[in-house]
């Protein structure tokens, strides 16, 4: 693979030692695979191209497969892209490709999910999943009237973030007397198993549950649909992300709210930061990064609870969060030449 990248980097002229003019920056924005969550990345790449002095393009691998993602990154470098913002296909495995990019002067940032330190990526910009799940559970408990039983619906267990989410929901529940997490249903970030398991739970134990917290995209959609089908507004629910089904369920009162992540800001700010790096800026070693299980160079891309009162303006909320991070991002996190 190194040989391919060498040729590609030479073709792209990316190995130049001198800092390039900012307008030469071409950012490849690459998710781990196809997923509705990343749709906002495409909008962000277009907006970054229109509003910043750079070119950013969104390119999605055909499947969630590390080798396919690596092949796509190689292809982008071959096409002249000289900066990569990536959702790691594998927290450790993607480091090898990013190291090779760095060898050829191509900077990278991890967005949406982090790379395992030590990593050549400049930093990680993503959702603080622990905080998001914790705050979402707190909102749910409030909606439940301060007590009751919770079921937690979550994603793939191979995703290290899933463990963090399980711990966060448990912590939020443990902090309130009379609240108990009665079941965790995991590995349901695919439609068919989500439908089967969530409905099985509702059929057999739904009467025991007072609230549902979902910390993954597909279970949020399926659970919102299930509650609508049942006409059940007794069970309170807090979802995650901004699928249309979830937003409609919030409007109609079947879901209390959703924990909005900021995929738009991740791609927009990631492209902006990569342009700064290519313009000669370096990441401040003493910048106020957060520490996670994977990296000590984490920047929270923001999270917000959206309920029925804010559901129609959720995009404004995402942009406001992005603007807040953008204000002062350069001074806070970067050392730039005069």
């Amino acid at each position: 693979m190194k040989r391919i990248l060498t040729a590609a980097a030479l073709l792209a002229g990316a190995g130049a030692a001198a800092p390039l003019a900012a307008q030469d920056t071409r950012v490849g924005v690459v998710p781990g695979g196809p997923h509705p969550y990343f749709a906002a990345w495409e909008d962000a790449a277009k907006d970054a191209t229109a509003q910043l002095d750079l070119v950013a393009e969104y390119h999605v691998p055909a499947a969630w497969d590390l080798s396919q993602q690596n092949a796509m990154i190689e292809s982008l470098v071959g096409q002249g892209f000289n900066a990569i913002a990536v959702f790691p296909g594998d927290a450790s495995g993607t480091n090898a490709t990013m190291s090779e990019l760095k060898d050829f002067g191509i900077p990278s940032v991890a967005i949406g999910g982090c790379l395992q330190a030590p990593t050549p990526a400049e930093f990680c910009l993503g959702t603080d999943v622990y905080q998001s799940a914790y705050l979402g559970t707190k909102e749910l408990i409030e909606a439940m009237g301060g007590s009751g039983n919770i079921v937690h619906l979550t994603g793939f267990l191979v995703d290290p973030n899933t463990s963090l989410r399980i711990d966060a929901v448990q912590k939020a529940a443990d902090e309130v007397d009379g609240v108990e997490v009665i079941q965790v249903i995991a590995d349901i970030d695919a439609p068919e198993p989500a439908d089967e398991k969530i409905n099985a739970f509702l059929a057999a134990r739904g009467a025991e549950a007072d609230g549902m917290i979902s910390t993954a995209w597909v279970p949020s959609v399926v659970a919102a649909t299930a509650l609508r089908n049942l006409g059940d507004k007794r069970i309170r629910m807090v979802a995650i992300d901004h699928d249309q089904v979830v937003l409609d369920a919030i409007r109609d009162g079947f879901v209390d709210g959703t924990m909005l992540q900021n995929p738009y800001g991740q791609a927009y700010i990631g492209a902006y930061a990569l342009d700064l790096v290519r313009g000669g800026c370096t990441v401040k070693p003493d910048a106020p990064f957060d520490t996670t299980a994977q990296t000590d160079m984490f920047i929270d891309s923001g999270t917000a609870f959206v309920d029925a009162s804010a559901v129609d303006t959720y995009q404004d909320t995402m942009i406001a969060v992005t603007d807040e991070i953008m204000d002062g991002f350069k001074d806070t996190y970067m050392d730039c030449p005069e």
Partner: protein
Amino acid sequence: MSDQGVTMPRAVLSGLRRHEWLGLAAVLVLGIVAMAATQPAFLSTYNIYIMLTAFSLSVLIALSQMVILAIGQLNLSVGGLGGLAAVIFAGAMDVLGLPVPLAILAGLAVGLLGGLINGIVTWRTGLNAFIVTLATLSIFKGVNIGLTEAQPFYGIAEPVKWFGNARLGALPALLLVSGPVVILTGVILARTMFGRHLLAVGGNQQAAALSGVGVGRIIVLAHVASGGLAAMAGMLAVARLQLGQPTIGDDWLIVSFAAPVIGGAVLAGGHVSVIGTCLGVAIITLINNALVLLRVDPFAVQLLLGFLILFAVGLGRVRSGR
């Protein structure tokens, strides 16, 4: 008197051996009794409806693989093709505004065409179907992602949504599709020339050819049937989920192989069982349901699922005297 006493158990044993699926049926009944005894909600109308809904979808997926196993081949593209048919079906309603019958025809046509491609390429090139369908899996998924850009189609017609969630007591409307399909598949395999040729090609391709069976035609038709069944499963998934998710089908691989194999299918071809496959699907559905009802630790679910499937296969084989 004593002779009769000996003869009766022998007859029963003989019957058990003739119908290998009786062992599986016993495993299923055992599981149902155990769950009903320990989980009062297990036999609630709504829980039975949920299990029958999952069964309705999974049985089509399993049959789609089973017809390929019958000819001694493997089809890795069942999920990819079913997923593509699902988004075509959903997209035809959402984007093109086609009426439901035309959208169904579009989805079905995609499945049949995909199966035709699998069959023709497999037959004409002589490549192993495993390799061919590995490639077409990627192609079907690639077309799916290219069309949807990973975004669901939301504009599903109301009658489709209604059908996906309609029920009469514990019986889901989805059974109106999968039930007749199961019966028809069983009849075709057991009672028609095509069914016998299918198994003959799977049992010994050269012998079948020497007997005058059009091997190429049978292989192509088997793949077409498989594609049609996968497409039906995909469209039922759209009806059930009420949206055209591009990830429909991603999770089908295990159930597509596990159910026919539990049901007694021989991977080398020549022997499959529709009843056995249905029982295999029912056992997997029961296990999945039980793992939720019994509140199994999420980190132990996959491990237990694997062991329980192995246990079901083993017990089924022992009880059927094999």
